[in-house]
């Protein structure tokens, strides 16, 4: 089978965006927890 690669935009759309979002959400939750708001 031929090797095919995602374009840069494809990488951003497929996994970079959800990863950055997940890091933000988890970071926010950890911050709330450390401030005793959770």
């Amino acid at each position, binding site marked *: 089978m*031929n090797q*095919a690669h995602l*374009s840069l935009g494809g990488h951003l*759309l497929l996994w970079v965006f959800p990863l950055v979002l*997940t890091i933000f959400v988890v970071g926010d939750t950890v911050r709330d927890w450390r401030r005793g*708001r959770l």
Partner: protein
Amino acid sequence: MSTLEASTVTTVGTVMVLYLFVLIFIGWRASRRTHGGEDFHLAGRSLGPWAAGISSTASSESGWVTLGAVGMTYTYGISGLWFAPGCLLGYLVNIYYVAPRLRALSAKNGSVTLTDVICRRWGDPRHVLRLTATAIILLCMMIYVASQMTAAGKAFSSSLGLDADGPGYLYGVLIGAAVITLVTVLGGFRAVAWTDLFQGLLVAVALIALPLWVIAKIGGFGALFSGLGAADPNFLTATGGRMGPALWGFVVGNLGIGLGYPGMPHVVTRYMATSSDRDVQRLQIIAMMWGVVVFYGSGLVGLVGRVSLSTLADGERALMALALEFTHPVVAGLLLAAVISAVLSTVSSQLLVAASAVSYDVVEQAFGKARDDKRSLVLGRVTVAVVGLLGVLIALRGESMVFWFVLFAWSGLGASFAPLTLLALGDTWVNRYGALACMLTGAGVTVVWKLGIKVMTDPTTVSPLFFDRLWWMVIVVAAVILMLGRVTEAFEVGHSAAVLAATAFTLAGWFLVQRWGFFNLYELVPAFAFATAAALGVSALFPVEEAVD
């Protein structure tokens, strides 16, 4: 006749029946804790973070997430995924901005529905806002409920390999509608939230487990990308080979889907029902992670379907086809139950919102009846049953009409209520006249813009001649509303100004599409912008004299 083997049909059917019994059991349990009106409409403001978080997100994603979104990536490859950032940005605004503020506001002024929040925030002495909001919500929700019941019928019949137009469809609509209406009548908001939690988790597990399982079977992500590239090199890019205005229209339109979230009454009432500020903080991570899993899961299902089942006539059926092809019948039954779960979790929430709009907003608040808590509960239950029955009748009678109108439902609700919810939570100069202008502008611009898109892209469904003459119909509708307001003596000067402003914005929208060809743009984006402008403009020009608490 079924196209599947008899043993498969039996197994899948048994799992489905068990799933429906679980729903009824949850409804029965919830009914034992439902004693009064606020219990029925808002679960007595006692939802925990899991029920509130998953219920808010599962209600917002209808059958679209297991059918339509899957079809997007099946048809367009990676570029079909643009809906995911659009929806998730909408989630971010809803969960981090709207949820904590709306909970605080509704607890402070004791409001039970989104309409109630708006009316109490700006004052509504003659019920103009309440009745306008109820009319828009009821129209959109009835159509939405009917279309979801249609989707349930199709999912049932195709899960069992039956003909989509045969008796399987009829039984699917009737069984799905009967079960979910019964559950909602019994347990009200609490039953809806609990069944949403169960169904939302089922959807999330199905949408992430199925594509990963099939990707492992076909040889990993490398094989997936190779297969996509072999089908079409554009499937591996974020633009999908689009250029210029078509590209920007596609991207902005997909991102614009997210604008609607703060205006969905069946979603934001979950935040109002949360038991504490702490629970709002907790629901944030739960709801966001559910969104990431579900949107990217459904995107992956479409991509995997494209590579492993490239000959499907309809990409929207990829999930069901993959389940039957690649998993054991028991697992396939659970996966197909997840498809129906996505539909039913939305139906139940919408049934309840439509019922609350009638029984709470109109009968109890506008007409001042049934103040007593027990009577309020009975009234809520009866209204759910009636709305459910009407939904079934529309689903069985006017299927084509339903699909037509449902196109307006998301954008119409989003444009009418999302700017208003955001403005209600901030500290702006908006008043009750601006609020009326916002709702009418949102609804009006959505209708003309959507019709315009239809005329330009598919002239067989809407005649261009009809669209050319639409401007005077807008004026006639405005005149009727103004006369009604005058005859009933409900309108103040500001209300009339709001109707005129909404008419002007709607005509401007018609002009932009008709004369300047702005039909590449998804209607929610301009409708949202115009509605916000109308709210701010009318409120600045027509201040309310007396103070409102």
